[in-house]
């Protein structure tokens, strides 16, 4: 370790780029907050109010830059023997000290701006319920790497000295960063992933945005209904509807494609000794690591499009801290069967493909019960609507009933679970396929629930609670549910491993 290069025992400031970075952050924050007002002002009043906007914009930016500069001069850190000390705060001084053993991981993040100056944003994740996450806006990359090495080496030395078991594994890993790349998305693959995303989601976003705009414009007295009268003149025919729908679809696809590419640009998913690392991003390059012991369960799913290309979205579900209710998920898009097999094997030594145990099915009442209720309800509504002669809506209701019944059937057909006494593997899905693999010893608690109908038929739902969410196995026989609960609880109680 070249200790003479940087001396962190004296207070160290951030790089000058931090000023720009803080400035940028506060300005964009303010702008985002005031966006609706700007929109309303620009559209609403026009001409003379522009000067107000200009003045307020200048005022805001001057204040923000003063804030940024003060913040820069008042923020510094230094290392003591066992702690990282940080001073910050503009109006009130905040002093934070983070003992090295509390540090969970040190992550770097690089926005486009930071990349130009070769500086990184430092993110330090700490353990414990008091979530004192610490962000350092900009630090020269070399310095940052050096700092990380120092902290990590202190940590590993400590481990040798005390050799107590209470040492966090995550850190000793990073001292020897031997990461093996599992997946690297190139442009073609990224494009494939982007085009097969769920476009409905971005479509909904657009719709919400337009509705919001519409409402806001109405508020300031711009009545759009006035213009829509013209549409009646054109005739609101099916062709227009089709065109609108097509445009909507294309825009949705483009937006989700761009979003995906920006977020996942140059994605590298790699495996260290005791964890995974994901680096990605176009404008902002983020580096996230997920330690094995923090991962509660993994899931992967595809949809109709992704199935053709044989790619999956893999999600690692983590629990952050025991007392925090924040669930951390890390999604890796564009995985193939190969990578999922790798991850599953690395984490649990579990092979997905091998038919060691058969997948158990759930009881058909899952589908039958639901279909009967929905059909009766649908019939009643259908008859009622036919009675008042609104046939079009009645048709929609009939289609909806068909869809609900059909999708329930698909879900029933696809659902299955299997366990080898160590791992629970649940599969399911509607149009796509969904898989969940969890190590049983990480279960927090199990419960069985029964509706009156289920009680009559001796059926039950099984709920499995984990630190990263809950999972349900519906409509198994009561006996099965009880056996599963007993065996899961037994495994949890007899296993000596820590769940986090």
């Amino acid at each position, binding site marked *: 370790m070249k200790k003479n290069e940087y001396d962190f025992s004296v207070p160290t400031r951030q790089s000058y780029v931090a000023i720009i970075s803080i400035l940028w952050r506060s300005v964009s924050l303010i702008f985002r907050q005031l966006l609706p007002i700007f929109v309303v002002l620009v559209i609403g009043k026009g001409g003379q109010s522009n000067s107000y906007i200009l003045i307020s914009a200048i005022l805001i930016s001057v204040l923000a830059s003063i804030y940024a500069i003060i913040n820069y001069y008042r923020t510094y850190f230094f290392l003591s023997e066992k702690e990282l000390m940080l001073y910050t705060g503009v109006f009130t001084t905040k002093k934070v000290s983070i003992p090295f053993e509390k540090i969970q991981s040190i992550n770097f993040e690089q926005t486009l701006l930071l990349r130009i100056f070769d500086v990184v944003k430092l993110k330090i994740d700490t353990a414990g319920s008091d979530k004192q996450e610490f962000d350092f806006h900009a630090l020269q990359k070399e310095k940052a790497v050096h700092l990380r090495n120092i902290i990590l080496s202190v940590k590993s030395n400590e481990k040798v000295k005390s050799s107590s078991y209470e040492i966090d594994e995550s850190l000793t890993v990073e001292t020897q960063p031997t990461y093996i790349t599992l997946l690297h998305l190139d442009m073609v693959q990224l494009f494939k992933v982007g085009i097969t995303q769920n476009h409905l989601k971005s479509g909904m976003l657009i719709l919400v945005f337009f509705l919001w705009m519409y409402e806001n414009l109405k508020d300031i007295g711009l009545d759009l209904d006035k213009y829509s009268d013209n549409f009646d003149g054109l005739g609101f025919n099916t062709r227009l509807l089709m065109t609108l729908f097509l445009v909507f679809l294309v825009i949705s696809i483009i937006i989700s494609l761009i979003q995906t590419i920006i977020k996942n640009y140059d994605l590298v998913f790699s495996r260290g000794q005791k964890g995974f690392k994901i680096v990605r991003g176009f404008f902002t390059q983020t580096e996230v690591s997920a330690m094995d012991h923090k991962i509660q369960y993994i899931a992967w799913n595809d949809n109709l499009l992704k199935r053709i290309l044989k790619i999956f979205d893999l999600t690692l579900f983590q629990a952050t801290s025991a007392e925090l209710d924040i669930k951390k998920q890390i999604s890796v898009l564009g995985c193939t069967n190969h990578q999922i097999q790798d991850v599953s094997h690395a984490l649990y030594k579990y092979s997905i493909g091998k038919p060691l145990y058969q997948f158990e099915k759930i009881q058909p009442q899952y589908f039958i019960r639901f279909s009967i209720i929905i059909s009766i309800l649908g019939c009643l509504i259908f008859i009622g609507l036919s009675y008042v002669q609104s046939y079009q809506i009645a048709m929609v209701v009939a289609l909806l009933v068909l869809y609900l019944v059909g999708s329930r059937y698909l879900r029933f057909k696809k659902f299955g679970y299997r366990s080898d006494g160590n791992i629970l593997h649940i599969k399911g899905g509607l149009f796509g396929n969904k898989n969940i693999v969890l190590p049983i010893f990480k279960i927090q608690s199990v419960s069985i629930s029964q509706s009156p109908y289920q009680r009559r038929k001796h059926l039950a739902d099984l709920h499995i609670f984990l630190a990263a969410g809950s999972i349900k196995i519906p409509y198994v026989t009561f006996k099965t549910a009880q056996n599963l609960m007993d065996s899961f609880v*037994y495994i949890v109680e007899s296993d000596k491993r820590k769940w986090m």
Partner: protein
Amino acid sequence: MNTGDSTTFENNQIYVSNLPTSEDVIFSPLEVKYRDINIWINLAILGVVLSICVAIYLILELDFPLLLLLSAFLGILIFFGLVLAYTYKHHEYRGYAVRQQDIIFKSGVFFRTITTLPFKRVQHCEVEQGPLERRFGLASLAIYTAGGSSSDLEIHGLTYENAMAMKSFITKVIGNSDEEE
């Protein structure tokens, strides 16, 4: 986690028949006092509702037909009758069982649930006492896990001594658990 300790946990075939089952566990009921308090509370609410109705009727000098008055009165009575029956039945289906390693709790009149919570996964537990509970020597035990609020247990209607005993037992078990890294 998965590299070193493969020897301690390799391939456990689970023979379900040999496992301790939750089936033949005997559940302890909750205190009858707790049920009775709840019934009295409901009766008190009924009294208050009825007197408010009467007061409004008299103050506003309303003049409803007798039939309407009677049916309204009957409706309120039936509603509270159902609530009382529910409270009564509720007590019947609730119960807890403390085992060496875990606690099992069942509840629900129409929708029944049985939850098993291993002590190993307990984050912390609390004994709570409201003013009424204190008056009657009752308490409730809340057990928290990392599985989110839906998996936390809250057992009302224990005697204070029982609640405290359970709490100290659980705390002891948590302290003794020897987990590896």
